[in-house]
């Protein structure tokens, strides 16, 4: 008896070493690495973490009042938290409501017109073209417009235009006569321009998911932030991304001028 009372671990609750709580993070990492559905990975991690931490599945209320194992007095249940968090964060996916309008615009030539707009851009060099494209992506971000840039813009438009500029520089008319290492570099730079513009530009609009995620997560942690304040603080890094991107594409131009123009 004396031994038992000296061991609080035996008082009906199982004590699991703190470190096992990190199992949830391990599940997220492994699950996503194995390319399992992210939805089920995230929810499994959440529920398991809650269970390991001795949280009840349900709150001790309504139909679940005093059911043993499922509830614990005075603690919010895991399923309740899941429902509460999801309902509170519906705002993160309000953009679904805009899909019929966007779909209609696409059906009547939205992407076509955007493509025509890009084609009008006159840029003599690959680097300058990519600087302009990155700015275009940032502008789309400010306007809150979501694009799938790689398949819709880079592959059909920006990349052929880049090749055209490189061919003009090398005074040739075929891709085959360009050094393949340089063509590969131009391909990589094209994809990078899309990613830079997309990643940092999308935080300049409060209707895109990045800002709404920050808003929702911080609200869950007890901080009620202004959406426009979050956007304001995204400006310094977005500006730096444009400057650094421009620098890298300018360096690319210098390099291509050496490698391609000298070839003649």
């Amino acid at each position: 008896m004396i031994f038992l009372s000296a061991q609080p671990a035996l008082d009906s609750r199982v004590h699991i070493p703190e470190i096992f709580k990190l199992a949830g993070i391990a599940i997220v990492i492994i699950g996503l690495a194995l390319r399992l559905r992210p939805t089920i990975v995230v929810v499994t991690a959440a529920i398991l973490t809650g269970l390991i931490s001795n949280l009840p599945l349900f709150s001790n209320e309504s139909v679940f009042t005093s059911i043993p194992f499922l509830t614990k007095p005075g603690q919010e249940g895991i399923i309740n938290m899941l429902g509460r968090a999801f309902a509170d964060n519906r705002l993160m996916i309000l953009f679904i409501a805009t899909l019929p309008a966007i779909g209609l615009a696409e059906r009547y030539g939205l992407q076509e017109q955007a493509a025509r707009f890009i084609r009008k851009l006159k840029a003599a060099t690959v680097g300058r073209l990519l600087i302009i494209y990155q700015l275009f992506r940032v502008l789309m971000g400010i306007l809150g417009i979501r694009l799938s840039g790689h398949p819709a813009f880079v592959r059909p438009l920006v990349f052929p235009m880049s090749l055209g500029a490189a061919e003009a520089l090398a005074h040739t008319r075929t891709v085959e006569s360009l050094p393949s290492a340089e063509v590969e570099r131009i391909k990589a730079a094209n994809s990078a321009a899309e990613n830079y513009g997309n990643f940092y530009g999308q935080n300049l609009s409060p209707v895109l998911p990045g800002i709404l995620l920050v808003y929702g997560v911080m609200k869950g942690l007890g901080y009620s932030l202004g959406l426009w304040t979050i956007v304001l603080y995204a400006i310094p890094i977005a500006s730096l991304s444009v400057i650094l991107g421009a620098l890298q594409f300018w360096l690319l131009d210098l390099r291509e001028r050496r490698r391609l123009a000298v070839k003649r």
Partner: protein
Amino acid sequence: MSLNAVYVLTGFVILAFAALTFKDRSNRHRLGTTLFWLLLGVIFVFGSAMPHWLTGLLVLSMVVLDGAGQVGRKSSNETTQSGQVPSKALTIGNKIFLVVLAIPLVTFAFAIAFRLFGLNSNDGAIVGLGYSAAGALLVGLILTKGSLTEAFQEGRRLNDAMGAVNILPPLLASLGIIFTASKISDLIATGIHKVIPGENLFLLIVANCLGMALFTMVMGNSFAAFPVITAGVLVPLIVRPFGVDPAMAAIITLTAGSTGTLMTPMAANFNIVPTALLDMRDQYGVIKFQAPFALTIWTCHIIVMWLLIRMF
């Protein structure tokens, strides 16, 4: 004009997608997909009134449906080109941009109106986003003279292209909340405190940005890393003890994650798929090109956060 009205409105859009899916006999996972969007629609319409345990169970059912592979997705590239109405596209021209521009314009107008009336302009932006959907649709219908059915079919096509991943952001927010309730955050915070002395703000900023970038690289998704790092490092070690502006610290932490996204093959959509699209020899070519940019801008994150804290 309330937030709840906007949720209900969005709920009806989702329910319409569910109905169209049900009628689409060509969908291999017709019933599962219908049920998935039906449940989401119900959560949107009734979420503010339903008990949380019921919402939780509905969310769980949706996730199980997706996990069992019962939620169909159309391949995302069968989009626009084939479905376009080219002759009409020519006559509409650049005016088509008005449809998508109506979304930010209406959102902005609501935020300003809410501020003028002394209401919370956050709610204005969110409520505005909901009504902008209706506004843009109206502009679109007038401009294109297309039908409502057409709009909803196209909307469903876009929605299907994203599929169940649509609901990931609120699920990640739930993960953050459960991590916090499980005191995981405290565990991570204690771990970091063992390495870095609590009073060294600069090193804590470095740890925060490094943790965010590394975690994003492992998970391939900055949105997934954000709630964990925010609850485990940013809020308990930087925002709370030092009284740092939470909006500034949070958005800079999120973009520190984007830096990680630029350097990881796990973010296949952005770094690996393009190498296939452009037929590149080196699968990691895009990542290699991006790495110097990413490392430079990551360093800038630390400097900018530090300066903004010191200056204000």
